[in-house]
């Protein structure tokens, strides 16, 4: 059997002495799209931040392996270079750093790690324009400071753009649908679906079932009280929408 892409084993973790993740297990293989659904405050963003190496969280026990390597020993940038990408629930604004400059540094950092030649400005801008057009992101937005003055929807589209440019092997989408109207939701989902190539894996984190009508997962997990309480196929999302989370939390 081939090594799974991501293996989270019996993870316990928290923030400021507060235990949030309590015995979390999940295995994701190459090409699989998993949905993780849970109520507000369940610890979904905490899990995605821990996967990306954000400081301020403490892992008390358990392990996370990515492509067979110990993920917890890597810095955030190493994880990104290894192919992890997090489309954030709340993308950060960085005044003074143009979106294009930021992305060029990101692309070339990753290419350098992969022993690929760095892209020159012309090549890069051309690629950025092309990918941007598909997501309705114009040249003007790309020139502006990163996320500054962007609407909620624009920020989410920009996260999707980053993902399509950085081409991660594993993408985590944390509430990619929050704050999107139906049209924007379609644009973002189309962008995400375009990246489903049978090799790339995804963890789609969401609160509502809505997004999963567009980005149809292979597996659905219900996350409550720090762990997965139920797993199933895509129909589980519908069941969840019908019954509400309370039902599942009781079940365990």
């Amino acid at each position, binding site marked *: 059997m081939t090594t799974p892409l991501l293996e989270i084993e019996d993870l316990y973790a928290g923030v400021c002495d507060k235990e949030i993740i309590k015995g979390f297990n999940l295995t994701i293989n190459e090409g699989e799209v998993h949905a993780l659904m849970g109520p507000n405050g369940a610890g979904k963003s905490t899990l995605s931040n821990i996967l990306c190496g954000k*400081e301020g969280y403490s892992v008390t026990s358990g392990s996370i392996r990515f492509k067979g390597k110990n993920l917890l020993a890597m810095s*955030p*940038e190493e994880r*990104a270079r290894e192919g992890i990408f997090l489309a954030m629930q709340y*993308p950060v604004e*960085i005044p003074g*750093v143009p979106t294009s400059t930021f992305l060029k540094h*990101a692309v070339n*950092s990753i290419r350098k790690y992969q022993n690929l030649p760095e892209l020159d400005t012309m090549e890069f801008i051309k690629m950025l324009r092309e990918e941007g057009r598909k997501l309705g992101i114009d040249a003007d937005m790309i020139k502006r*400071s990163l996320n500054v003055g962007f609407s909620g929807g624009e920020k989410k589209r920009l996260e999707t753009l980053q993902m399509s440019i950085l081409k991660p092997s594993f993408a985590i989408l944390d509430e990619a649908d929050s704050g999107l109207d139906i049209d924007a939701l379609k644009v973002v989902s189309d962008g995400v679906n375009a990246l489903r190539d049978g090799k790339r894996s995804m963890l789609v984190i969401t609160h509502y079932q809505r997004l999963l009508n567009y980005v149809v997962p292979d597996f659905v997990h219900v996350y409550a009280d720090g762990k997965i309480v139920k797993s199933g196929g895509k129909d589980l999302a519908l069941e969840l929408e019908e019954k509400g989370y309370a039902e599942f939390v009781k079940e365990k």
Partner: protein
Amino acid sequence: MNNLLQNVKLLGSESPWLSRLRQSGSSAFKEQGFPSAKTEAWKYTKLRELKSKDFIISQTTSDTTAIELPFDCYKICFENGWFCPSSSNLPQGVEVIPLIEAILFHPELHNYICKLANINTHPFVALNQAYLQEGVFIKIEKNVNIKKPLAIISHTEGSDINLLFNLRNIIVLDENSAATVVEYHTYSGDTKSGYLANIVNEIYLASNANLQHYKVQDEAFKANHIAFSAVSQNRCSKYQSFCLQRGANIGRNETLVQLKDEGAETEINAAYLMDGWATLDTTTNVEHLAPHTYSHQLIKGVVSGNAKGVFQGKIHIAPNAIGTEGNQLHKALLLSDNAEVDVKPELEIYADDVKCSHGAASGELDEEQLFYMRSRGIGIEEAKQLLIDAYLDEITTKIDNEKISQWIKLITQENRK
């Protein structure tokens, strides 16, 4: 401590007028000595290290080093404080004259020199005047607009001898004239050289004159750079300045602006970048002496290591200066636990109906922003640099001249390899 007043042979000693000026500078310095820890104006910038050194008055020009600038400009070059005709490139038809020549042959200079910079309140000005000889006299005639920047380049060849040199620049813009002056203070050789560059500028802007004054202080890491600029502004004149300090162990850039008639406007922008044990001081004193005068100041610092940034900013609004606007903002980015900034804003408002504000903020790099960048594969050092560049961008974009702005931006980025 008065070993600084050495008996050296200066040019022009046959001129009684010049000798008297030097004599009064020398006496004033002897009387005051260096500022002490008790001197209010120097409260945060300690001179202990500077005072412990023996300085030798620079008396020879070594081989000249040609300094290239990435923009087209006229050049007035100094090597170890001595004017260098061979590397200079002076404009035709505009008065740009080496100071000693102007002193001896252009009596007109006597109206301007040693008038704005006060020897009794500024010991370093007194010291500068005691050795009055080198510098430049720039006079732009009425209605003349010099498009090409005039660059005053002071290059020091760093060695184990602690040289002292004094430069005095007199810049006069007649009515309705305009010019861009760039001051570039740089060095080569021994980076640990402990020389002292003591610079005084006296600047006169007549009605409607417009001066853009950009300065880069990029001295050796152990050097001392003390500069004082006094600016006198007439009706509707405009002074726009920017100073980047990033070299020297002790660096001070002090500016006194007197807004003497209605409509005069001044803009003082400055940035400092520092590391090690350096102290870099930006001191401003803006005097609104007439109604409807305007001043804007933005100062930003990036401090790491054990370094200390100092900002002292005074805005004085005279009783008759109604309808005046003065604002001032200092911000600092502290990159290490031992980095420090000392800030002293002072507002003296004697008039009604004025708009005056000051503010100060210091902080660290934003963790969320750093994480966001790193989560996209950007290494931590590169991410920090991008954030620092962004931080300084706010101020370097205020430089109107695109090429000079670009040049200064690059210098700020070079600082952190």
